[in-house]
């Protein structure tokens, strides 16, 4: 077998890899969208008047957060069909990623809400604003900027966890690389290219999130320009 990096082979598989990258981006985007919504539900579950519901919600979040995404994927993919629910690998993957990262995002939301000063609430009460009005006009506009960096971080996080989807057969980038590598019995080029594509996409994204974080901190007066 020829040693070293074979550029011709790399060039040959490039179109396939780029096409699969598109799938990875779609998977990350859809998973993120679900996670954003699921996070809201977990957040609401934490803030109900009932202590029992809050406690149950807390335990569910803790359970999902402290168990591996990989086994959760297997669980959803293999167990649901036993109860008669047949879903494609794509749907299973999206649900699992949405649930898993939804728990993380609910913490981001919670932190952002708690980041709004208590005096803001007191001032709204003094002005006799309704709770809904307070949330809509006073609290959420202030909480949202605080949540942005955390939300951005998890977008990058989800993107980097999409290769796990290949284990249940979702045809994303890593899956394509494994398939191409197995077919030609050369893993050097496909896996290296996957790494490079990930770097090209996620390093600028992470830098952008860091810049956003700085902007938010400056706007809030936490650090000087």
């Amino acid at each position, binding site marked *: 077998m020829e*040693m*070293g990096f074979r550029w011709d082979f790399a060039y040959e598989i490039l179109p396939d890899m780029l096409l699969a990258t598109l799938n990875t981006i779609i998977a990350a985007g859809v998973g993120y969208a679900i996670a954003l919504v699921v996070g809201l539900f977990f957040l609401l579950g934490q803030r109900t008047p009932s202590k029992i519901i809050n406690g149950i919600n807390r335990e569910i979040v*803790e*359970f999902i*957060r*402290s*168990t*591996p*995404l*990989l*086994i*959760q994927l*297997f*669980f959803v993919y*293999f*167990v649901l069909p*036993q109860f008669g629910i047949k879903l494609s690998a794509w749907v299973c993957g999206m649900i699992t990623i949405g649930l898993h990262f939804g728990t993380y995002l609910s913490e981001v939301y919670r932190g952002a809400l708690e980041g709004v000063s208590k005096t803001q609430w007191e001032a709204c009460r003094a002005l006799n604003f309704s709770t809904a009005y307070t949330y809509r006009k006073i609290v959420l506009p202030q909480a949202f900027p605080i949540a942005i960096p955390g939300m951005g971080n998890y977008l990058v996080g989800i993107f*980097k*966890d*999409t*290769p*796990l989807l*290949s*284990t249940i057969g979702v045809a994303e980038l*890593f899956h394509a690389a*494994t398939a191409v*590598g197995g077919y030609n019995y050369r*893993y*050097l080029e496909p*896996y*290296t290219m*996957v*790494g490079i594509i*990930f*770097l090209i996409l*996620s*390093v600028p994204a*992470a830098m952008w999130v860091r810049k956003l974080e700085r902007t938010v901190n400056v706007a809030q007066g936490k650090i000087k320009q």
Partner: protein
Amino acid sequence: MSYFAFLAEHGTTLLLGTVTTIKVLVCSMILYVIISMIFGLMRLSKNPIIQGIATVYIEFFRGTSLLVQLFWVYYVLPFFGISLEAFVAGVVALGLNFGAYGAEIVRGGILAVPKGQWEAAHALNFSPAKRIKRIIIPQIFPIILPPAANLTVELLKATALVALVTVVDLTFEAKQINSITWLSAQCFGTALLIYYIMARLALVPFLRWLEVLAARKVGRGKA
């Protein structure tokens, strides 16, 4: 088959897998702590080459996916004549990946030590090495342990990935049992429970205890 019958038949296998998972966790934990310390300090070096190396390392490992790194270490390194055993490859990949995240935590911790401490050590004519070792490092533990604890729980979860490069850990055993018996709910459910118990009842209390210990050492917290 009842759940107890399932446990009676496959419980030992899962427990053996758990032991391997714990071994992977402990080894990669030691590796990542060492790497974080080294690269965290390098990141703050005034020498642009040393700082550059650390920055490239950190950005590289944080920018790519752990699974890709793991497969690269296990399947691609042999092309360059370096064949690692699955267990070693898993520990190395985990250690390198989490070391990059840890290095940023260490860097943040060092920056968070009040400036007066540096100046005082300087005024007392401590050598740079002694300043870091005796004054700064002991003070960073209470700062870095809470984020490091989160990272370590993430590490426990990430150890599941080594199953994909044929390390016979808890995840691997669960998959194996699933493919023999097709009792998916039982075997993956049990695996999830074991990971949960390891995280909530062993790892997290241990890390909290470390936090209390570190706070006490620098005179914060209750004696």
